């Protein structure tokens, strides 16, 4: 049996792709400037180095690689579109399947050269510049990219085999690749717009954008668009999902093999002709006509129905539909004949108006009371990317009281379309009948606190919380230089290792867990245990005194160097109002009650309460908030302290940095919407502290009344 690759033909295609391949590789190399710029910028601005996340690392580059793969494959198969070249290649004494696979190999080799070259230089640059680098995530991105490339190459070769003009090649490739995903995604959006309790990306795996890798950037775009239309659903692909990768790989292989079959059956006389199959031609035409109509259906479903928009979208859809037929077939007659079939588009769009409602209705009829639930898991906790939170998934909670809380939350979720409670969770409910349900539920403050207590008794949970992935500290935040952060991390690590299991849990922050009474700093690390990565937050308390002291020294030194200008600057911001455009607030525990603080206690300003605007006519309304102004004045005038045990730590930062974490030893923080976060150790006398508390209480009261 002859090998599947024809060496001579492969060599030829490889040579013919030389220019395109080199250009692609060069452009890819330019993407390596990104880590350098990031590193330089971070160092120049004395900011912390960001951990490269899969999506931030990859999205743009992936998009480029996919486009490059698309172009290379088109070039490699371009001979199919011209009569003379098609005849020449079809006359060659080489099996068609060998031509096909040799071509794909040549394309793949060029892409592999470009991408691998990029990856090696990328890793090298990270290494040389000392930028934190998560190799596991990078490998995931790399694997994703390769699978995505196979998908692209497969679909383009399939499209080229099915049609004979560049126009139809391109549009059919786009349609084959993206239409099924778009239809699923839009269906997911429709379902999501109809219900909050169905986690669409989890109820059916194909609703999850992580599947079908190539479509991800495009799907994210659709998701963002839908978000602007009032939906809460935004695609957030998981680049490290093994099942998603396997699925995409199978999909890619399927496309590639279908391409091979189509290529083998392809008639040389197809060159210069549109799609030979009338059915496929119609399907692609319908796909292009359908998408604008689905947008219209979404508008209607979200009650954003505007007659003008409707008319425009229908007209646009019909025009796209007809234009595609006209341009692809170059036949006005065929365009006219296709017009009545436009009703198929309308029919499918109409289905989208009521099918999602039926799905939601059916889902809401599924009952799960406390008696029928065996256990449940917390799958995700809001949108935090906390290492310990993501690790929580898979831990079964079967405590009867917790189950009852879950059952109540489930009942509330299916009967109410909005969540007023504090915390939203996605839970997987294991029913005694053996079937599972996955739903979004909302827990009340009391439920959340009780769950936290109950979780502490869960052995699997305790075990996970006490674990700390090995050698995976990528960075540490809280306003330290990278080298300082590493030093603190090392000190902390040593102290952490010596702690008891109970104390380890006490210092590792979790959304649900009680905050330790004497924490003065927070250390944020990027943690990774294989592909299970995320941020981990640890409290620096008297349980790790060396770390606390080192933090105080570093921060005081830093603010000695840089003065308290930043704090004063914050005052200035408030006075000019330039940067206070959305929120401020104070989160605290009292000095006299250093007990555990729990979510929802009186000392915490709920997130939503912080959404008011201090700015009026561009200036801070001092008279509107005199107590806050005085409070800040006290803090600004206080001296910096380098003693962790005797100081008050103040954080000024972005409220979106998650206020829960900023509670510290005695006084917590003042959070500004200035987009940055600064941590100070201040010397405050008891009188000053009392006054701050008093002012804070006044301010809280004002907030609750409304400004």
């Amino acid at each position, binding site marked *: 049996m002859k090998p599947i690759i024809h060496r*001579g033909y492969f060599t*030829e295609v490889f040579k013919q792709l030389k220019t395109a391949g080199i250009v692609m590789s060069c452009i890819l190399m330019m993407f390596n400037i990104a880590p350098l710029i990031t590193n330089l910028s971070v160092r120049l601005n004395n900011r912390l180095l960001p951990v490269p996340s899969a999506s931030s690392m990859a999205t743009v580059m992936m998009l480029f690689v996919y486009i490059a793969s698309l172009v290379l494959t088109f070039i490699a198969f371009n001979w199919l579109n011209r009569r003379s070249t098609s*005849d020449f290649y079809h006359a060659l*004494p080489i099996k068609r399947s060998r031509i096909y696979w040799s071509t794909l190999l040549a394309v793949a080799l060029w892409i592999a050269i470009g991408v691998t070259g990029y990856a090696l230089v990328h890793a090298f640059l990270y290494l040389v510049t000392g930028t934190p680098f998560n190799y596991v995530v990078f490998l995931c991105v790399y694997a994703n990219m390769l699978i995505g490339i196979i998908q692209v190459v497969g679909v383009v070769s399939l499209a080229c085999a099915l049609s004979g003009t560049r126009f139809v090649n391109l549009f059919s490739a786009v349609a084959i690749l993206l239409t099924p995903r778009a239809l699923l995604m839009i269906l997911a959006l429709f379902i999501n717009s109809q219900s909050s309790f169905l986690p669409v990306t989890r109820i059916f795996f194909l609703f999850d954008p992580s599947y079908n890798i190539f479509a991800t950037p495009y799907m994210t775009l659709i998701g963002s668009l839908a978000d602007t239309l009032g939906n809460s659903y935004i695609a957030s692909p998981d680049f490290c999902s093994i099942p998603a990768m396997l699925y995409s790989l199978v999909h890619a292989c399927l496309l590639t093999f279908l391409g091979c079959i189509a290529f083998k059956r392809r*008639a040389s006389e197809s060159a210069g002709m549109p799609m030979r199959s009338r059915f496929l031609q119609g399907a692609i035409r319908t796909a292009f006509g359908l998408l604008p109509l689905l947008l219209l259906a979404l508008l209607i479903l979200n009650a954003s129905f505007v007659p003008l928009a409707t008319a425009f979208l229908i007209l646009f859809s019909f025009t796209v539909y007809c234009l595609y037929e006209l341009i692809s077939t170059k036949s006005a007659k065929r365009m006219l004949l296709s017009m009545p079939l436009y009703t198929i588009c309308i029919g499918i769009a109409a289905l989208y108006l009521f099918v999602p409602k039926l799905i939601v209705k059916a889902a809401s009829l599924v009952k799960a009371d406390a008696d029928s639930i065996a256990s449940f898991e917390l799958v995700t906790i809001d949108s935090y990317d906390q290492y310990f939170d993501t690790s929580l998934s898979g831990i079964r909670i079967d405590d009867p009281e917790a189950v009852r809380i879950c059952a109540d939350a489930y009942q509330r979720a299916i009967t109410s379309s909005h969540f007023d409670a504090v915390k939203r969770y996605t839970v997987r409910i294991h029913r005694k009948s053996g079937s599972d349900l996955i739903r979004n539920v909302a827990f009340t403050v009391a439920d959340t606190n009780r769950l936290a207590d109950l979780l502490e008794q869960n052995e699997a949970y305790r075990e996970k919380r006490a674990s700390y992935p090995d050698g995976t500290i990528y960075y540490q935040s809280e306003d330290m230089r990278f080298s300082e952060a590493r030093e603190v991390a090392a000190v902390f690590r040593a102290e952490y290792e010596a702690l008891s299991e109970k104390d380890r849990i006490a210092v590792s922050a979790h959304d649900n867990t009680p905050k330790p009474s004497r924490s003065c700093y927070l250390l944020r690390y990027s943690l990774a245990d294989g592909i299970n990565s995320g941020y981990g937050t640890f409290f620096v308390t008297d349980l790790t005194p060396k770390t606390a002291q080192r933090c105080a020294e570093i921060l005081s030194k830093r603010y000695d160097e840089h003065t308290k200008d930043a704090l004063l600057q914050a005052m200035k911001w408030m006075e000019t109002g330039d940067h206070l455009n959305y929120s401020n607030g104070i989160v605290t525990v009292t000095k006299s009650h250093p007990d555990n603080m729990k979510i929802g206690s009186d000392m915490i300003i709920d997130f939503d309460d912080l959404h008011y605007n201090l700015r009026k006519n561009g200036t801070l309304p001092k008279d509107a908030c005199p107590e806050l102004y005085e409070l800040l004045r006290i803090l600004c005038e206080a001296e910096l302290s380098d003693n962790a045990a005797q100081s008050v730590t103040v954080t000024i930062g972005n409220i979106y940095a998650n206020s829960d974490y900023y509670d510290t030893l005695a006084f917590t923080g003042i959070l500004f919407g200035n987009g940055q976060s600064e941590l100070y150790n201040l010397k405050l006398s008891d009188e000053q502290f009392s006054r701050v508390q008093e002012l804070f209480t006044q301010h809280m009261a004002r907030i609750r009344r409304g400004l």
Partner: protein
Amino acid sequence: MITASNLTKRFGDFYALNRLNCTIPEGCIYGLVGSNGAGKSTLLRLISGIYRPDGGSVAIDGQSVFDNPDVKNRLVFVPDELFFLPRSNMKRMAELYANLYERFSLEKFERLTRLFSLNPNQNIATFSKGMKRQAATILALCCNADYILFDETFDGLDPVMRNLVKTLLYDDVLERKATAVITSHSLRELEDTCDQLALLHKGGIIFESDIGNLKTSLFKVQVAFSEEYDKTKFDGVSVLSYTKHGSVASLIVRGDREQTEAKIKAMQPILFEILPLSLEEVFVFEMDALGYEFSEVLKEEVK
């Protein structure tokens, strides 16, 4: 041997070839003539395995051609619309052919490029139409294929180059027992090249014959007698056409030349002359005999 049986190829509703049958023996130069749209190029594309037949079959030495590399390795096709890699020169094209055709000879390539005085390093895009044809022909001949298929190859070649190509073709046929199939819409083009000719019309071969036979079995006789006479006088002779101007009659006769000559001379004519027919004239009369209007079959030629 190339065998086509009931070969059918259609494009949409149009039948380019409709149940065509033909046999092309080894070691000959086979001419396919027909007007535009007769199906010549389609037949060559089917023989070379570019097209898949919609009906019937085409085989070389009993083996189907389509997607059969073993057979396709034994043939090379020079289409009417030539293909060269963008910005390539003949050297690069030779490299391409050498990668793809097992029997491609680089030595022969060098010899032929010298013979045709073509610069192998010159960009082919700068070649004239005739030079491009020469280049394509050279590349095809260097493949050393058993079957060489030329589609309208002699178009655009000047007489000197045409003769050179023909000579090389004869060499290949004689030395390697190669078979060449040449299409043209011009009978004159093929007249002095081919051993066999087939006339294609509306997707079928309506006439096929050995050229030598054609020319010797059909001839023109001019004859006059002292007495009055008409066509009945030649009842013993196979007359395809009879015209008379004054006392001189012109006959197109099929049959043995010597026997015909003896028969007519026995009638004691005052004028007797046997004239050779051009291939075109032969075709005109053969078509007439088959009930076709020659000018319909080969429109281009008549114009």
